[in-house]
C-alpha cells in the first residue's frame, strides 16, 4: 500500500497547459464579433492614445534621450507585465477555484499557465511598440535578444507577490483590497512614467530601495542603450526575486488543498 500521488504523464501536462492557455486567451474573445483581433487592436489603440496626448501637448516632461511618448509606452507595457502577472496569480482561486474543487489538477501547471498568458499579453503590444520605435527612428540595441531574460525577474516578482496575495485573499478579501491598492501606489513610486534619475527628496529614497526600480529600469535600459541599470544591484534583485518565487510557488502548491477546503463550493 502506498500514498497515491497523482502522476500525470508529461504529454498530458503539455496538453493540459495548451488547453488552459487557449481557454484563458480565447474563450472570452469568442463572445465578440472581432474575436482574437482584439488582441491586436487594443495595443494599437493604446499607442494611438499616447501619440494623441503627446500631439495635444499634454505630455511635456522635459528633455529626454527618446521621445517621452516612446518612453512611457515602453515603461507602461513593462509595468503591465508585472501587474498582469500579479493579478493572474492572485486570482488563481477565483479563476480556477470551482475547477480545482472537482478536479485534482497540477497546481504548478496552472501557475505556469498564468505566467504564459501574461507573457503573451505582454509580447503582442510589445511587438507593436518595437514597430513604432523603428518607425519614429529609435534604434534598438543589438542586445535586444536577451531582453526576455532580463525581463523575467520582474515577472517572477509579480507572480511571487500574486501567489502570496492569492493564498491569503482566498481566506479573507482584505488582502486583495490591500495589495491591489498597494501595487497601484507602487506604479507611482517606481520609475515607470519618469526615469530613476529625475527623482528628488523622499521619492529618491523610495526609488533607491524599491526592487521594482531595478527590475523595470534594467530591461528598459537594455533595450534602449544595451546597459543594465546599476548591474550589481539589478543582479542581486533578480536572484532574490527568483528565490522568492520558487519558495512561494512551493508554499502555494502545498497549501492549495487546505485553502480549497476552507473556501468550499
Amino acid at each position, binding site marked *: *500500500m*502506498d*500514498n*497515491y*500521488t*497523482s*502522476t*500525470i*504523464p508529461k*504529454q*498530458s501536462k*503539455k*496538453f*493540459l497547459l*495548451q*488547453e*488552459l492557455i487557449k*481557454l484563458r486567451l480565447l*474563450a*472570452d474573445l*469568442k*463572445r465578440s464579433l472581432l474575436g482574437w483581433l482584439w488582441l491586436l487592436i487594443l495595443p494599437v489603440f493604446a499607442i494611438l492614445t499616447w501619440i494623441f496626448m503627446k500631439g495635444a501637448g499634454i505630455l511635456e516632461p522635459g528633455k529626454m534621450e527618446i521621445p517621452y511618448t516612446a518612453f512611457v509606452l515602453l515603461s507602461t507595457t513593462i509595468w503591465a507585465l508585472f501587474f498582469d502577472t500579479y493579478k493572474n496569480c492572485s486570482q488563481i482561486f477565483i479563476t480556477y477555484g*470551482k*475547477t*480545482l*474543487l*472537482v*478536479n*485534482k*489538477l497540477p497546481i504548478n501547471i496552472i501557475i505556469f499557465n498564468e505566467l504564459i498568458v501574461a507573457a503573451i499579453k505582454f509580447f503582442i503590444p510589445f511587438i507593436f511598440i518595437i514597430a513604432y520605435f523603428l518607425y519614429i527612428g529609435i534604434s534598438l540595441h543589438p542586445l535586444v535578444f536577451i531582453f526576455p531574460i532580463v525581463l523575467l525577474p520582474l515577472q517572477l516578482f509579480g507572480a511571487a507577490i500574486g501567489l502570496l496575495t492569492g*493564498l*491569503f485573499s482566498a*481566506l*479573507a478579501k482584505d488582502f486583495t483590497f490591500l495589495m491591489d491598492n498597494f501595487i497601484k501606489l507602487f506604479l507611482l513610486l517606481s520609475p515607470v512614467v519618469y526615469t530613476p534619475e529625475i527623482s528628488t527628496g523622499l521619492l529618491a529614497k523610495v526609488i533607491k530601495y524599491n526592487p521594482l526600480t531595478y527590475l523595470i529600469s534594467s530591461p528598459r535600459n537594455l533595450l534602449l542603450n544595451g546597459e543594465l541599470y546599476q548591474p550589481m544591484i539589478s543582479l542581486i534583485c533578480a536572484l532574490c526575486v527568483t528565490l522568492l518565487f520558487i519558495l512561494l510557488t512551493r*508554499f502555494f502548491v*502545498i*497549501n492549495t*488543498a*487546505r*485553502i*480549497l*477546503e*476552507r473556501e*468550499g463550493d
Partner: protein
Amino acid sequence: MNTTNKQISMSTDEATLKPIPLLKVTGLYKKFCKDLTYNMYYGIKDLITYFFGLKPDYSSLRKKEFWALHDINFNIYEDDIVILAGINGSGKTTLTRMLAGIYETERGTIEYHKKIKKIISVFAIKSGFNPILTGRENIYLKAAYYGMSRKEIEANMNFIISFSDIGSFIDTPIGKYSSGMKTRLAMSLVLSIKSDILFIDEGFSFSDSKFKTKCYKFLKEEYTKKGRALIIATHRLTEISDIANRLIVLENGKVINTTVDVVQGIKDYTAN
C-alpha cells in the same frame, strides 16, 4: 500525515471479501468551521503556522469547528462497486474529495495499492464545461483536466459522441445544450477513460432513465472482474442497487453501516 491509534473497525462482512484492498482508509478525520469569521481567522493562523514549517494541532476542535468526518475506517477491494449513502451533509462529498486527493489529509491515512496508476473522480458532473465552447472543444478541455493526452482523447472521441448520443450537436456551443445533454456528454467522457478507481459523486442527476440504465450496464461490465473499483456517492440507491456489491452508510461524518447485503442495507437505511 498523522495516524490515530484506534483499531480499524470493520464489519464482519468485510472479512469475507477478497483480500486485496485497493484502497485502505484508516482513522480519517476532517474538520470544518461553521462560522465565516472564525474560518478566516483559523485559515490565516494555520497558513502562517505552515509558513514557518510547523503543523497546527488537528487532534481537537477549536471554537465553532465541527467534525465533518469522524474516525472513518473502511477498505475498498478489487472488483468492488460501492454505494456511499447518506443524507445531505453526512460527509459523502468531503470523504470522496479526500479520497480523490482534492482535500488534504491531516489526520488519519488514505492508502492506495501500489498497482493503482489512475484515479478519476467526478463531482458535479456538468462542472468544468465552458458554455462558449462547443461540445467537442469541451471534451478536450475536460479530458485535459482528467489527465488525458490529446492522442488518448482523439482515440476515445467516437465512443464519447456515440455513447452520449449527442450527434451533430457535438460542434454546437455547450451553452445551448439541455442539462441532460451536458450530463450525457460529461458521463460519456468519464466512461471512456480506463481508471483503476472511479469515484462518482451524484453523477447521474438530470439524465434520463434510458441513459442511466446504459451507464449502469457499462459500469458493471467495466468494474467487475477487472481488478478495478467503483465508488458512487448518491441518493438514488435503488437505481444502482443491482450493480453494487457493497453499501457504506454515513451519518454526521461517521460510518454507521457497511454491508455486502446491499438490498437489505438500503431497506435499513431508508427505514431509518
